């Protein structure tokens, strides 16, 4: 097992370095600028509105950047290796195919994790700067200053950040699964995006399927069953909206979604390894 782990680590490190060399971190600069620009744009609103805008903007920017990096990174993983024939030199070494898949995924996750941490640092920096700006304006009103500090230093933001990371790791797992089936990067991106979008409606499809009984036609029932069985419930991550709205959210709900994500990634990696084992290269 230790030898397998060593091989997985080597593949992951290689994948990470390859991705970093593609200047992917340049997007961080764009992210920081977007956020700083957005922070000043809403200055005419109340501080609650300003923080809501800023948090929405920050989380959307983190999600979108992470989604693009995860999607494009995963799409490049296996189809590009096959196209360049470099996969043959990797697999002729004492490396099992599942180790290759897991290593590739972990490399991608490492890249995403580093990017997320850096983006989160920029985000918290902007929130802190906004806090200084607003507390300067409201200096005379102790209650307002307290409320501004509460908004800027809200510990629930950690929960939102973890939920975004978990969602991106599941999307990357999906992309890795499709990259073991596909021969082109376009297919991987298109399929993953489709499942990502459908996944936000999976909860509605599930309830319809479970509760409608005979009321629906069999064609629609089969479609709803397929969505329910094979698509992750991305709506579960919408707890982020609760946090941005300033509503209370128990850690238990967050931890449940995190556990679901970990298990889902495990299932996707098993499925991806399964497909890749049987694939002719």
């Amino acid at each position, binding site marked *: 097992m230790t030898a397998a782990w060593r091989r997985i680590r080597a593949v992951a490190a290689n994948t990470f370095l390859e991705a970093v060399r593609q200047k992917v971190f340049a997007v961080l600069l764009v992210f920081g600028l977007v956020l700083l620009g957005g922070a000043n744009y809403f200055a005419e609103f109340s501080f609650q*509105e300003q923080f809501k805008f800023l948090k929405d903007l920050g989380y959307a920017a983190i999600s979108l950047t992470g989604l693009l990096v995860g999607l494009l990174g995963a799409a490049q993983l296996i189809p590009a290796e096959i196209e360049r024939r470099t996969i043959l030199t990797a697999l002729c070494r004492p490396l099992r195919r599942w180790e290759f898949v897991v290593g590739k995924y972990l490399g991608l996750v490492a890249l995403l994790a580093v990017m997320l941490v850096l983006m989160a640092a920029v985000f918290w920096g902007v929130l802190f700067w906004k806090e200084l700006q607003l507390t300067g304006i409201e200096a005379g009103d102790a209650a307002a200053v307290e409320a501004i500090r509460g908004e800027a230093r809200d510990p629930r933001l950690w929960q939102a950040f973890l939920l975004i990371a978990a969602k991106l790791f599941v999307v990357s797992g999906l992309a890795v699964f499709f990259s073991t089936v596909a021969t082109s990067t376009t297919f991987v991106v298109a399929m993953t995006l489709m499942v990502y979008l459908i996944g936000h409606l999976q909860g509605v499809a599930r*309830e319809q399927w479970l509760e409608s009984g005979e009321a629906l036609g069999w064609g629609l029932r089969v479609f709803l069953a397929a969505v329910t069985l094979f698509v992750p419930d991305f709506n579960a991550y919408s707890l982020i909206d609760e946090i941005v709205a300033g509503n209370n959210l128990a850690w238990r709900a967050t931890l*449940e979604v995190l556990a*679901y994500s970990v298990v889902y990634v495990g299932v996707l990696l098993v499925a991806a390894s399964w497909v890749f084992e049987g694939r002719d290269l």
Partner: protein
Amino acid sequence: MIRVWSWLGLVAFLVAWGGIKIPWENQMARHQRLATLGFANPTSVALREKLGQGLALAALGGFRGLAANALMLEAHGAWEKKQWVRVRSNLEMATILQPRVALFWDLASWHMAWNAAVAAENFNGEPSETRRRIEARKWVEAGRELLERGTRAVPEKSILFQRLGDLYWQRLADYQAAASCYREALTKGDAPVFLERFVGYALAKAGDREAALEYFRNLRLSLGEHPDPERKPEVLDREIRRLEREIAEQRQGRVP
């Protein structure tokens, strides 16, 4: 042949996982509803909001917050131009996208029941005062309806109940309804301290001085011997004395 078996095995594995994940996802949805809305089963209201939200979610892929903010900015622009129908449609859409954001319901109802209604009351283009009042009343009702929906979408916070109370008081002159809303707000735990006195003020304003006096007396008793100064015991004492005097005067003035 081996490949067919391999694919069938994969499908069987994913179906087996589906069998595990469906109850898990159901339980997770129940827990999330309980944690955020305070009830486990979807109500008709929750379903209504959820359907709109679900479609929007699919279309926006999880970036609802940004879309809702864009609509709010759009509404702000429309407000500056006094285009009330645009203000209403944009803010209603924002509340569909993010029904759990109390701020949207609050803002939308304020624009409807106050800004749009006052603009309708003062509209120079309509010479008939009756028609202007009818039009204004429609906007106030629109604001009330938004707040009613908002209190069902964010039932755990006091703010929308408080705003609904304000609307009943200031825009509809229905002080009993205002008192009920303030009472409901006070059960939420995050209500501002001053709101506890507003129930009594609303009852007195409604003409029910006896009920107001009883409410203020009970409230004063609940403060104990060493009350928190923030709860303003001196204001309560003053209100009790005023109501006692007014009730006594009323009784004396009656024809025996």
